[in-house]
């Protein structure tokens, strides 16, 4: 079975990680699973987001019930995509979906840019 290789690979990595004292689950190295995660992310951000419940969330509900929702001040600046709706687009589904995809792409880019310089090609740095 071709599935064995990535499993062994992650086990080796787990042995290395145990030395750092920061044990956690062994995250899969299977490309197919990460591709599925990427597709799920894009579908969630781009399509399912439109069908999200419009009701207030837990904190907003509490603020409403206890009469301090009005304490929330109007934002003093205008963000690029306020309330997850890309301005200037008329289709409600498109403006929410696009906001989601843009946000997911920004997060991918930001986290990639932050974590890559912090990562070690080999794991030598983890063994101080």
């Amino acid at each position, binding site marked *: 079975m071709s599935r064995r290789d*990535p499993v*062994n690979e*992650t*086990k*080796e*990595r*787990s*042995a290395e*990680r*145990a030395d*750092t004292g*920061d*044990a*956690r*689950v*062994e*995250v*899969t190295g299977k490309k197919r*699973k*990460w591709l599925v*995660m990427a597709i*799920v992310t894009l579908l*969630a*951000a781009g399509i399912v*987001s439109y069908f*999200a*419940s*419009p009701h*207030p*969330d*837990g*904190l907003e509900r*509490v603020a409403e*019930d206890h009469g*301090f929702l009005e*304490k*929330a*001040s109007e*934002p003093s*600046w205008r*963000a*690029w*995509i306020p309330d*997850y709706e890309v301005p200037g687009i008329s289709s409600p589904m498109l403006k929410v979906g696009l906001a*989601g995809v843009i*946000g*997911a792409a920004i*997060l*991918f*880019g*930001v*986290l*990639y840019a*932050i*974590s890559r310089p*912090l*990562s070690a090609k080999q794991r030598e*740095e*983890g063994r*101080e």
Partner: protein
Amino acid sequence: MHIPDGFLDAKACIATGALGAGAIAYGLKKTKMTLARPEVPKIALIGAFIFAAQMLNFPVSGATSGHFLGGALASILFGPAVGVVMMSAVLIVQALVFQDGGLTVLGANIFCSGVIGSYVGYGVYRLGLTLLRGKATKAVTFLAAWCSIVAASCAVAVLLAWSGTFPLNVALTAMAGWHSLIGIGEGLVTALVVAYLAERNVTFDSASASKEASAV
């Protein structure tokens, strides 16, 4: 559970701002010590997933909704220090680009959803694996995620009470009450994704687990 500007007073904003900044600095330092290159795209993708999942408010009860938070997911997969960095990135982008969560309370949101969410989720997960000796990992993951969002909501309640918004016991009851329901969604999503992406769960004794692994 993004706190908007105006809910917290100056002392709470400043205190949590300092705590949040300190936690990010520590998280980045710890990340630098432990991160391997193959993890970089995985971290970036899970960060994008957490952002996307946070958009999906689901109905809870009556005219209330809840959404996924992600602190437990990030910390179980990549460790709590990386979890804090990931959650902080999500919260900062949400505040700056999408106006979700205030700027003066950014530290408070990072402290509650990021730091408390990540460390409580990770702590309960590790404790559960230790006590159950690595059995019932899906249930442990569910519980860890449930605890992480309830703990984060309690932290928000404490900050609200500290800011004089409403009494602590009322704040705790209200916030924990709603988020114990929302936590069911948090637990399900976290357990599902962790089960899908985990090859193997690290058990109570990481040292023996590593010997076992290298013996294979």
